[in-house]
């Protein structure tokens, strides 16, 4: 649990935005992710919360190299050495994705099935579970083929029976009816589809899976079911999750540690309990106060933040939150706060964090 799996250092993602004028076009850079650093340990869940447009999805995809980071490092600690994901290219990148899918934790059967080269390489692996369980499943493939795709496409397994066995195993773990494997996605409800997505993400037995708003579109009961499933799978398979969501109470339930993102930067990163019950950043505090409680007498008094989330094209100077912060002082406008460890494992980016402890009643 204490072994570091992924180290993210000074991650920066910028997108060129072309604005078309009548005669000339200008290219503006959108800083989607700005100087983000954090660690993910083997087998833990890190929650990533923030409002829409804060860059949550971009962080997740940059770690998976679905988007190329502009600068910074993503270091993957595999059993056979470290790899800087941000520096891989072309063939190598694909080989890395494949290697990440390699099998090495299971019993001797799979080990003997590995080729010489595969054994030599270290085998970190990762995958992604999408938000929309409808568009992320190819409607033209059977569930069995969808789940088997990472094995087939990654070239991990060739033998049909082996693949079938593995698909059945993971499908059973994800509580899918084995009879359903022959069906097409249109036969399933949202919750069932999301379980198929999870089975696909885990079939190659990865070390690390990004869940990008994977439960946000689901009903509360199904949400609870998927959260429990992910927790169980984590326990059984030792996989680490980066759990991106805007629903804070779900994040609180699944995560060991939680990071709060505001306009592309981290404002706070702490173990779940400290973050939810002793937030040190005014923004985290405001977010937490806005969670609706299913108790009409819980006293729902959300802190009203002034104005709108700033446009990332024109992010404010100094502390990015100063335009909306109820405690903003002149210093916040001029000086960018440091990313510092205010308590053990509790990181925050605020000049006055020492003065704040928005302690909340703990149940």
């Amino acid at each position, binding site marked *: 649990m204490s072994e570091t799996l992924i180290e993210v250092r000074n991650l920066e993602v910028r997108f060129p935005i072309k604005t078309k004028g009548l005669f000339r076009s200008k290219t503006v850079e959108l800083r989607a992710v700005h100087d983000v650093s954090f660690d993910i340990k083997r087998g833990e869940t890190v929650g990533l919360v923030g409002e829409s447009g804060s860059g949550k999805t971009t962080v997740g995809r940059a770690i998976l190299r679905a988007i190329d980071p502009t600068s910074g490092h993503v270091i993957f600690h595999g059993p056979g050495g470290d790899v800087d994901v941000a520096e891989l290219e072309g063939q190598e990148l694909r080989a890395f994705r494949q290697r990440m899918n390699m099998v090495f934790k299971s019993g001797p059967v799979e080990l003997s099935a590995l080729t010489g080269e595969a054994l030599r390489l270290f085998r970190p692996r990762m995958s992604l579970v999408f938000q929309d369980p409808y568009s992320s499943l190819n409607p033209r493939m059977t569930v069995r083929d969808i789940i088997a795709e990472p094995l087939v496409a990654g070239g991990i397994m060739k033998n049909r029976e082996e693949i079938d066995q593995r698909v059945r195993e993971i499908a059973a773990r994800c509580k899918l009816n084995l009879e359903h494997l022959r069906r097409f996605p249109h036969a399933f409800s949202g919750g069932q589809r999301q379980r198929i997505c999870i089975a696909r993400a885990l079939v190659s037995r990865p070390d690390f899976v990004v869940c990008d708003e994977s439960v946000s579109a689901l*009903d509360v009961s199904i949400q609870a079911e998927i*959260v429990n499933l992910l927790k169980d799978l984590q326990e059984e398979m030792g996989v680490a999750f980066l759990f991106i969501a805007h*629903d*804070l109470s779900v994040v609180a339930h699944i995560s060991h540690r939680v990071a709060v993102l505001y306009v592309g930067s981290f404002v706070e990163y702490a173990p779940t309990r400290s973050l939810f019950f002793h937030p040190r950043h005014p923004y985290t505090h405001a977010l937490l106060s*806005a969670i609706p409680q*299913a108790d009409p007498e*819980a006293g729902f008094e959300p802190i009203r933040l002034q104005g709108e989330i700033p446009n990332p094209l024109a992010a404010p100077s100094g502390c990015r939150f100063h335009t909306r912060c109820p405690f903003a002082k002149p210093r916040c406008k001029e000086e960018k706060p440091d990313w510092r460890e205010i308590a053990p494992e509790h990181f925050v980016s605020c000049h006055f964090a020492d003065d704040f402890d928005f302690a909340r009643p703990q149940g």
Partner: protein
Amino acid sequence: MDAILTVENLTISFRTDEGTITPIQNVSFQVGRGKTLGLVGESGSGKSVSTKALMRLLPGTAMIAPDSRMAYRAKDGRTIEIEKLARNGKAVRRLRGGEIGMIFQEPMASFSPVYTIGNQMVEAIRLHRGLGRRQARAEAIDMLAKVGISSPEARIDQYAHEMSGGMRQRAMIALALSAGPALLIADEPTTALDVTIQAQVLELMGGLQQDLGMAMIFITHDLGVIAQIADEVAVMYLGTIVERGPTKEIIRDPKHPYTQGLLEAIPSLESLDHRLKPVPGDIPSPGERPSGCPFRSRCGQAIEGLCDKEVPLETTFGAARAVRCWLHEERGRSAA
């Protein structure tokens, strides 16, 4: 109760690739004047379909059963029998917007990309309230200010796509309110929003409702949201209302096993160490609706020989509460 809307025995079926399905069965509810009714249920429970029927917005393949009644008390005191109106007739058009307004989860759906929000609001005000162009514009600016849009004089000439998500949601509420409806149907209006903006929108809607004395049907799957905004709740499962009553009482003391399950499934910050408790099992697909009580396939307390055979009757508790469950019927209690 002074009801603005009374729905009785609403049953709707559709013909689809999967055969004839009946997403709404015998739904009855009332909305009191100036009150908010929350409709809660998982996707596929028929929340949206039933309100679309109120606006006569269902596609042509939908069939409304002959004994369904939807009686709406109009602003002038007449009672309109919605189910008898001709589809797309003049009466239906007057009903939409002017009497019953609607807002959606996706605000872009309400706005035309080629008109400014001002254009659309002015048109709605002139159509339903018969004001002149200048007066209507003043009214629209007023309405934008009411929903908390800063510098409404400038914003009124913007297009919806020029606004941010929260702003757009407010503009949509302003558009729906500008026609002066007496009943507003809000179909998951905050589901796609971030918590901070959701909190603002909920606060705004609650305040506006008080000011305008408007009734509201608020559809959502989030009981947390319902607890903040609704006076009464109707919990739907597979097209049937399984429990209804005042919000506080239902959340404090849910009687139907499904309502209990839904409430227990909510992740709460108070119990971080406990496992979440989903309602067991999957919602049956529309073609595989269980016999008897629709919920019995997922119910831990189902009574064999009763719940799988007979559809439970509605048991009332006091004036306002009702539940459809054999556990609360004399026969069920004796069988258990």
